């Protein structure tokens, strides 16, 4: 058997033999100290903060989370009346909410041009169930100095009642459209049918 002596091994052996021997019980003390310093479980919020600090989520998972959030946000924005359903009520309602896949063209607004002639009006707005009867939603613009008032709005396919709000206070039915009477308030309005695009 050929015995090859390595200079590095020899130096290590000399260094180790020069060290003072471990005192009795030292190992046991070290182990006890380790046990005593065992990490206690942290509250959930601290773990969450730490998780965020470590950023231990993978880039792919984060990307998927963003995509899912955007999809959820889009669905909630367009199809579901978020404000209208409490969590509890959703589980009790007999009618399920329609998903975005089958909402289809009927959930998209169709551009509708509105024209109204009233020379002495200072301001005109269109109000109707397509804009929630919001007087600020669809202001009309005068065409020229004393031309007709016009606006283009988006309305979903279906039946809509509406009127023109003149000078912020007077409701006037559209003289060019079919008449409608509000079942609840009895006032005169107009009606239009928006067809599916």
């Amino acid at each position, binding site marked *: 058997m050929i015995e090859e002596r390595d200079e590095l091994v020899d130096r290590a052996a000399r260094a180790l033999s020069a060290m003072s021997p471990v005192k009795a019980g030292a190992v046991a003390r070290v182990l006890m100290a380790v046990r005593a310093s065992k990490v206690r479980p942290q509250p959930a919020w601290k773990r969450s903060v730490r998780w965020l600090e470590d950023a231990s989520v993978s880039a792919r998972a984060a990307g998927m989370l963003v995509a899912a959030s955007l999809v959820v946000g889009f669905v909630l924005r367009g199809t579901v009346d978020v404000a209208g359903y409490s969590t509890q009520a959703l589980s009790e309602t007999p*009618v399920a909410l329609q998903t975005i896949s089958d909402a289809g063209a009927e*959930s998209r607004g169709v551009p509708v041009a509105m024209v109204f002639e009233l020379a002495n009006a200072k301001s005109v707005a269109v109000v109707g169930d397509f804009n929630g009867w919001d007087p600020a939603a669809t202001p009309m613009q005068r065409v020229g100095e004393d031309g007709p008032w016009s606006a283009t709005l988006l309305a979903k396919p279906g039946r809509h009642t509406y009127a023109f709000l003149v000078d912020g206070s007077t409701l006037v039915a559209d003289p060019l459209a079919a008449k409608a009477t509000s079942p609840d308030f009895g006032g005169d309005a107009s009606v239009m049918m928006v067809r599916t695009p």
Partner: protein
Amino acid sequence: MTLATRTNGFARSMIRRAALAVAAIATLSAASVQLGAQEARLLAIQDDATRSMVRDFIEAARARGTPTEPLVSRALEGVAFRATAKRIEQAMVALEERIGRSRELLAPRATVDELAAAADALANGVPASAIRDLRKIAPYRQITVEIGVLTELVAKGVAPKKAAVMVRDLMARGATGTQLTELNAAVQQDVAFGVTPVAALELRGRGVMSLLSPSASVNAAIRP
């Protein structure tokens, strides 16, 4: 560890944190957008007492699981018509009842637009059974336009049962929403020229029917 490796790690960490932040913001934003928009619209109600009444009613309706958008719209409609607070409240109560009834009629699924259209139909005298029949014919697509056409026919004087049967039969034979909308326009035009609403619907309805393939059975389409 080289400088390049450390820089890459830092960049990845920042991207992940940014992605988490965007995800959280997107989710919260989507949920809060409509609430904020509704609240802003209520500010259009000038009278403090009326606005307070409407806000309380909306909150209570939300807790009951009623879609609130049609209720806000009805309240603002009342304001536009200069209705009293009491009248507006009565209108919201009546609308919530009709939405609840519409949910039953349109079961098992409905959009908020369909619920609002059906509630409008009931208010205009469309029979509840007619709405249920339309849903049975088209259980998997929106029928907002079909309900709207039926509502308008009834509102313009066609006998509710006649209108319901015609729209139901046309739907069962595959009439599109556009065809029904055109039918309604033609009927309105005929009525304007002096034809009775029922005669106009009968005439125009047959015209549309002739363009459609004959259905094996209308009753089969609405059988539960």
